[in-house]
């Protein structure tokens, strides 16, 4: 077992002090590919926001990174959440990935800009990076957002339903791309999705939020006929 990059100990998550999920104890190994599954309202987004530091846990303990070294998150939110009013090109959006390193009163250097171009090429987004971000298709936006996440030079890549609103072909290609960079760059990947076949194909670990319970295990452990029947409350033929 590789060292844990995220350790949750009896963690309770929720809003305004009211837990949505509690008693979450698990660890996520460095360089692993973990999928977070669950029905709408099961707490997937709340768990993700808590891990990212966007909201505080209601209780318990959460250790991100090791010995006080905080890992960098490369966060890929859902593309539909962005306001189309902003006149930004794909490159402008991807460049934001460098803003964690480029402090106030400074501007991204040529080296940083070249690196962003490299990230856009890696995600096959260079061709439309000069287009307005709001006019790109769902799949193109996701590629730009993944390039932006890579531009942060992340330790953990966090993807919140990256295939929502993306057609089947683009979904397949996106997930294959994520799998490839996971392997090439030794990235820890946390993927929130509803797409079970893709999870089966690409993920190593699964966190399944179901009826207030958190099931954690490998694909082989959780994708069994008995477990699936239990989760979906139906007989599987």
């Amino acid at each position, binding site marked *: 077992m590789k060292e844990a990059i995220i350790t949750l100990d009896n963690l309770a998550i929720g809003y305004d002090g009211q837990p949505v999920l509690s008693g979450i104890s698990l660890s996520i190994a460095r360089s692993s590919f973990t999928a977070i599954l669950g029905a709408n309202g099961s707490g997937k987004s709340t768990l993700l926001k808590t891990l990212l530091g966007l909201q505080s846990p209601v209780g318990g303990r959460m250790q991100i990174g090791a010995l006080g070294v905080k890992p960098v*998150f490369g966060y890929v*939110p859902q593309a539909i959440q*962005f*306001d189309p009013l*902003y006149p930004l090109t794909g490159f402008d959006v991807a460049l934001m990935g460098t*803003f964690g390193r*480029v402090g106030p*009163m400074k501007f991204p250097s040529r080296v940083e800009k070249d690196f962003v171009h490299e990230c856009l090429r890696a995600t096959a987004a260079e061709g439309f990076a000069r287009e307005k971000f709001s006019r790109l298709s769902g799949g193109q936006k996701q590629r730009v957002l993944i390039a932006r996440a890579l531009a942060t030079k992340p330790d953990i890549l966090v993807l919140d339903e990256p295939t929502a609103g993306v057609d089947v072909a683009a979904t397949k290609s996106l997930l294959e791309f994520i799998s490839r960079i996971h392997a090439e760059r030794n990235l820890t990947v946390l993927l929130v999705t509803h797409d079970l076949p893709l999870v089966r194909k690409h993920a190593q670990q699964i966190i399944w939020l179901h009826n207030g319970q958190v099931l954690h295990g490998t694909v082989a452990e959780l994708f069994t006929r008995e477990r699936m029947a239990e989760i979906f409350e139906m007989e599987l033929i």
Partner: protein
Amino acid sequence: MESLRHILSPDFLLRNSVYTSVLIGFACPLVGVFLVLRRLVFIGVALPQIASTGIAIAFSVPMWLGLLQPEHAAHSEHLYAFAGSTFFSLGAILVMAFLERRGGGSIEGRLGTAYVVAAALSIIILSKNRYGEVGWLDLMKGEVITIDNFDLALTGVTLALVLAVLGLFHKEILFVSFDRAMAITLGKNILLWDIVLYLLIGLTVSMAVLSVGPLIAFGFLLIPALTSHQFARTMRQFTIAASCLGGVSSFAGFWIAYEYNLPVGPTDVVLLGVVFFLAFLAKKLWVAIIGSKAVKP
């Protein structure tokens, strides 16, 4: 053209008014673009009105307390006005920011209430002040004609400060406006950058209201930004085009007003409105032409 030569002459009697109008015209859209992007257009309406209520209170309270005589030097009078305008607009925008962060309730409802109460309060205060209708109402309406060197310098320094801060921290302000979640994950203090933006908006509005009045301040905050937004592909284009449109329109508005003996501020706003409408038509026409070309085999 004779009137244009007059206006451009260094000896022109109203040159300070021209410079102030143009400065306001260039500066207001720079913060206005963020009001448009963050969908806070109602703040652009409410804040100038609250700032002018601040001016009314800053004039009247010292009067009632016997600390200010209206016949005294204009400088102290304008400093009171500047203090009232700044204090009220900054206070109001920080309260609004706090309520927005806490969430809940209707932002539009709060802003609408703030606007109408502020407008009513201004009228009540000035109606109870025997000097209100003599000279101060002109200031409240944005009397751009009587601007001395001190007011011009105050406007210039304030707007230079706004421009400098906006230029230096544009990246951070844009980032927290566009994607707050990502900004937090990269360790940005979104509260700090929100406050910086709100302070810039408050300072610009208070200065603009003091110089040109609430109606014109609102016009310059929003119309140039809304006009240039129709064509801009990047933030740089958006910001520069909005600022240039504001500056050029304020000069052109002054010229038209001088030529035809019209009130300057309202002429500026009507001119901005005409430019917005023409830009809208041009955009529609452009889209129609491009669209028809696209469907041709």
